[in-house]
């Protein structure tokens, strides 16, 4: 069965509960990741074989201001059905039009109680949250751009710049560090001479 993807902060969904959270309950911070707007919550459908997972992640990463690690949770599509939450196909708002039209869904008509029930059910019945590292996200974005999956006009400048430049090489880092040391030494020397 396909799964639904939601963006989270992984540390909020660690399976080891704090001592004050009893069985059947979850840490309150989890709710901070289930953002709603007009009683709807945005999720993405991920195929059984996860064949579209990287494309969806790439589309979502392309909406950000900078390239950072990507945390997400996958939960069974049956969970909303069991809780009586309606799932509606709507367009997503990422720079990937194909992903927007095919894999975006809204969980609609959510009440506060339903949202809490959803959070508890997802926490208890899903695999641990997953993370793609910053470098993996960068690679996905590069591939997405090469395959023309993204409307570049809708990708933030900071992201495009990083995709073009890539991560700093070790040599570049050493150069930057040397520059920092040189600047600090020069300032110190100037002060010494002045005095």
């Amino acid at each position, binding site marked *: 069965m396909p799964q639904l993807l939601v963006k989270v902060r992984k540390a909020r969904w*660690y399976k080891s509960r704090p001592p004050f959270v009893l069985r059947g309950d979850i840490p309150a911070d989890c709710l901070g990741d289930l953002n709603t707007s007009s009683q709807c919550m945005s999720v993405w459908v991920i195929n059984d074989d996860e064949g579209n997972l990287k494309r969806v992640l790439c589309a979502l990463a392309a909406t950000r201001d900078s390239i*950072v690690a990507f945390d997400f949770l996958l939960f069974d599509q049956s969970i909303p059905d069991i809780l009586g939450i309606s799932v509606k196909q709507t367009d997503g708002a990422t720079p990937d039009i194909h992903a927007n039209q095919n894999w975006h869904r809204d969980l609609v008509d959510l009440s506060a109680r339903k949202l809490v029930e959803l959070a508890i059910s997802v926490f208890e019945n899903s695999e641990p*949250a997953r993370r793609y590292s910053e470098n993996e996200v960068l690679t996905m974005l590069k591939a997405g751009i090469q395959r023309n999956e993204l409307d570049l006009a809708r990708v933030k400048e900071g992201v495009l710049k990083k995709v073009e430049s890539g991560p700093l090489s070790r040599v570049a*880092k050493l150069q930057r560090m040397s520059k*920092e040391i040189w600047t600090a030494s020069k300032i110190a020397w100037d*002060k*010494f001479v002045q*005095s």
Partner: protein
Amino acid sequence: MSRSALAWNEEIDREVVPPLNIGVGSALPASFLFGTSKIDPVAGWTARLNLDSVSTLPPAAHHLEARDSDELKPYGPGNATSVQTIAESISPGFQEGIAHYFPVQMATWPITNQIAIVRTKDRTTEMRFRNIFQKAIEEFFEDGMDNEFTAELGSLVQKYGPDSKYILARILKDNTSSPSVWAEAMRWIGRADEVMSSGSRLFLLKEGLKSQFAEVRDGAALGLASMDDPFAVPYLERAIASERVEELRKDMKQVLDQLRSR
């Protein structure tokens, strides 16, 4: 000089050290500068030299500060050291009447006798930092998205330069700010190469790895991944060895692998 021998003035929140007679180029016990229990500068104390009694320091040098706990170790209580050359840039804090220096070299700086030292916290600057951490509790953070908190933090770090490192370390250590806000700060610090030196970022992220909150430790690990600096390897190894949350330990190992492959 033992800590109990120091006078404490509650009203002005300062520890006043009685004047000490030293000759030109003579040795000054480090315990005089830092007390016996205040060796760690993260604890928030600075040693101030009274300029009136110091004739040969640079004109702006009215504030001598020990800057790095690692540098300080050899100068522990009971040891004696010469009064250090104070050679470092004047921080932007100087505009408010505070210039910070740190003892990087052991060359003797000639100093006339009668130095009065007052240890004091720069409370105004620190409050500015604390306020933005307090305000940020109301804010919603989304990964990879700019937000008001990191924008303000960036401005303050830019304004106060190297001092920011110690102020942030103090705020982190006293656990008075929200872990979620700190997690966001840690992620930002990892990317803040425009406004902070790699040494300062590494120092703060290393402290973050020791936080009692998993969320903050995770933020610190992410910050280190962003920095992509192999110097962080030993810190991560230590953090992994003591990490109790299985999922977080796995994430830290992933970062460690990334840094080792650099």
